[in-house]
């Protein structure tokens, strides 16, 4: 099997694994193959194992890893549920009222802005009516400019309010997503449970893994724990 097929199969067998686990495993093997100088069309040596075997080991560990991650979800404190229930009849109308108030403010601002535009437009019309004197025309120009300025200001204000609300909402959504991701990442990294069983089973099923007898007399450079570790 070549490298490309190997990676494709591994991804396929890991379909049901946690996305983070899939990414970690794929990255690990991509890096290993890169370092080993294995090109996409090169055959992956048998010593790397099969994608199925690798995936099964990951999935076997994952079922154990899933438990502590689900726990915090199930452990929503009782008081939080009560608060949520009691807040519901107040909270929902409050949200509706807030939204209505914002909507009213927006509509009112737009209406006033349009009103000022109308005043400006009518003054333009009045300015060119027969019998309107020069002094009044100058005053009208001033009033037109003033009305336009007020209208533009109001539009800007409305736009700023809407943009602010939008930003707040999208930030809330992003924060929620990030929090979720961080929680899943942390539960993976800080899982203190040590589980030798899964590996022991797979190691035992591979008779090729063993170490030769001369290691009962190990190289002190490599093994001496007193010198190096204490």
């Amino acid at each position, binding site marked *: 099997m070549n490298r490309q097929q190997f990676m494709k199969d591994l991804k396929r067998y890991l379909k049901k694994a946690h996305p983070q686990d899939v990414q970690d495993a794929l990255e*690990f093997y991509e890096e*290993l193959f890169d*370092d080993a100088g294995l090109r996409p069309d090169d055959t992956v040596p048998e010593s790397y194992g099969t994608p199925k075997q690798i995936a099964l080991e990951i999935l076997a560990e994952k079922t154990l890893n899933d438990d502590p991650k689900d726990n915090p979800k199930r452990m929503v404190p009782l008081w939080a549920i009560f608060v949520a229930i009691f807040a519901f009849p107040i909270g929902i109308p409050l949200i509706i009222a807030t939204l209505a108030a914002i909507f009213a403010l927006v509509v009112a601002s737009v209406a006033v802005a349009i009103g000022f535009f109308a005043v400006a437009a009518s003054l333009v019309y009045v300015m060119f009516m027969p019998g309107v004197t020069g002094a009044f025309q100058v005053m009208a120009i001033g009033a037109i400019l003033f009305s336009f300025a007020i209208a533009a200001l109001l539009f800007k204000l409305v736009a700023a309010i809407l943009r602010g609300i939008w930003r707040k909402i999208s930030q809330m959504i992003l924060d929620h997503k990030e929090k979720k991701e961080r929680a899943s990442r942390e539960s993976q*990294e800080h899982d203190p449970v040590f589980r030798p069983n899964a590996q022991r089973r797979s*190691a035992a099923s*591979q008779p090729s893994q063993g*170490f030769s007898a001369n290691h009962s007399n190990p190289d002190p450079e490599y093994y001496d*724990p007193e010198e190096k570790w*204490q």
Partner: protein
Amino acid sequence: MAFPIQAQLMDYLVLAIVHRGDTYGYELTQTLMSLINVSESSLYPVLRRLKAANYLRTYDKEIDGRNRRYYSMTTEGERMLVKLSGDWQEFKDGIDSIVGGTV
């Protein structure tokens, strides 16, 4: 003639190698395979488990335009290594005294 290398022993070996200096997947496989009879396939589950148990942590470093994941020891990992080296010594002494006839 080969003795199977069990999970605990793999953990001990990998922790011992990382203890000597931060290293990455390929280097780990090369070090292990040059000295004992293990295959590449056995490394990933070990690293995964050691990381999950918080004995190892990882960080990424860019090398030649691509990413390489390095493994380094945590305090818990150091503690585990000391414990495992004690266990190994005990095991080795037991075996040695039996085969050496000192019992």
